[in-house]
């Protein structure tokens, strides 16, 4: 039955591509989360009226974030080829996609982190200060703890965008489902391969959304 609908699909290569997509997504999401939270915290804390208010740092960070967020991803990959080659000595394979994926997604997530942190009631931060909380206590136990649902829903959106990015990265040789759909499906006119790859990508996206929503709801005590 399945073989009739997908006569040209080599399931072994399909699973391999799926694995590559999941590998690229997982790794880039993890690193993007860390970098995005760091950048978001920096943006929030150095903005006007906040604890580390610093106009120069804020403006520079903000401009960089905006630039990298605005470059279309497919162009960003091309622009980053020399950087990737310098870093990994190759521009092929799943690992080679990671720098572009992270640099493309981290600024996007950083803005979401900044917005999440701004949502926190200033009074709660003041209350923590009035108790004698140190900077690290305020960051970990107030800022990040209180914005957890927004941080999780933000990384969910980012992760889904990253699945899309990995498909684009695939086109220039990073492997994964995008690569398979493009080379094996589109260029060889095997529509069933493209369809199978698309369905698997959709399933990955649904699973990410489901997990994200589940944790967002669990964490939200408001």
């Amino acid at each position, binding site marked *: 039955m399945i073989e009739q609908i997908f006569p040209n699909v080599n399931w072994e290569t399909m699973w391999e591509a799926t694995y590559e997509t999941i590998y690229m997504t997982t790794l880039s999401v993890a690193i993007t989360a860390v970098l995005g939270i760091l950048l978001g915290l920096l943006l929030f804390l150095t903005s006007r009226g906040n604890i580390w208010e610093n106009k120069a740092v804020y403006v520079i960070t903000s401009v960089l974030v905006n630039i990298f967020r605005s470059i279309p991803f497919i162009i960003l990959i091309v622009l980053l080829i020399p950087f990737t080659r310098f870093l990994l000595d190759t521009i092929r394979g799943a690992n080679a996609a990671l720098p572009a994926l992270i640099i493309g997604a981290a600024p996007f997530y950083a803005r979401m982190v900044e917005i999440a942190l701004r949502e926190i009631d200033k009074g709660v931060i003041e209350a923590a200060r*009035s108790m004698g909380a*140190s900077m690290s206590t305020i960051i970990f136990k107030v800022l990040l703890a209180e914005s957890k649902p927004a941080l999780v829903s933000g990384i969910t959106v980012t992760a889904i965008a990253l699945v899309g990015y990995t498909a684009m990265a695939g086109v220039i040789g990073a492997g994964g489902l995008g690569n398979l759909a493009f080379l094996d499906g589109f260029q060889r006119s095997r529509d069933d391969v493209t369809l199978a790859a698309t369905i698997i990508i959709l399933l990955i996206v649904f699973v990410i959304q489901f997990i994200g929503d589940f944790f967002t709801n669990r964490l939200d*005590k408001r």
Partner: protein
Amino acid sequence: MISISNAKKIFKTRHGEITAVDDVSLSIHEGEIFGIIGYSGAGKSTLIRMLNGLELPTSGTVDVNGKVISGINSRDLRKARQKISMIFQHFNLLWSRTVRENIAFPLEIAGISKSERTKKVEELIELVGLDGRGDAYPSQLSGGQKQRVGIARALANDPEVLLCDEATSALDPQTTDSILELLVDINKRLGLTIVLITHEMHVIRKICHRVAVMEAGQVVELGDVLDIFKQPKESITKRFVQQVTEPEETKDTIEHLLNEYKDDLVVKLTFVGESAEQPVITNLIRSFDIQVNILQGKVSQTQNGAYGTLFLHLRGNSDEAKKAVNYLEQASVGVEVITND
């Protein structure tokens, strides 16, 4: 216990400088409940934040229990803040934590061990009357309950001073009273010094021993609450006292009477402590040939004694009425003839 000398706070804004606190000096004794009253923008909020270093004075010094809050390094300031707690108008609880975890937060900051934290939190939950609600999240609590969590959290590190920033302004009258009673109870039981700011004279009347009135960054009047009620000097103080003693309707009635009966007198009597117990009105009616009509009367309890006001409408010939007022003045009650202007 607390002494503020020549404290000044100037905020620089795009539209120039704003002097929020203008050369304030005052001292607060150990174990007292000290109120600061003023309208919004009077500088009381900035002043109370100087006591725990959330705001630092532009000039002048702030000394709390021997520590110069206005001049210590940030490490010592954080340490000092553990003994100078604060509660807030909007409670400022962490919504991601349960009641128990919220109360434990200052203990975590102070580095108390887990087992001691658990023990202390249970004691505090009981002290503020939140038994059984320990695992609730703030969003599941009423305003009054949230403030009880705020108070429990503030008491966690056995503070020497409790600062209350409009702690009851977001609560309904009944809840306000129960929170105020809790504060008085804590003050008596733990000997805690309480400094509160408010715009409601009701709060001052109910729990404060002494009060400072602030206007435009300055303390314009300061004294025992009962004395301030008896003899408010500044017009702003009089207005605050009237919040408690004279409801709006009385004012309207008096104005109406003065317009209607131009020859009659309307007098306001004030009773403090024992003078409230003399049969002044009986004597007044028996001794003088006048009609006495009671317009409004009220007794307010303060922390240092009772304070009453009575508005009388006196009808009769003007000589007799004058004699009656004379009698009242002799009888150790405060008398004020109200005129229409």
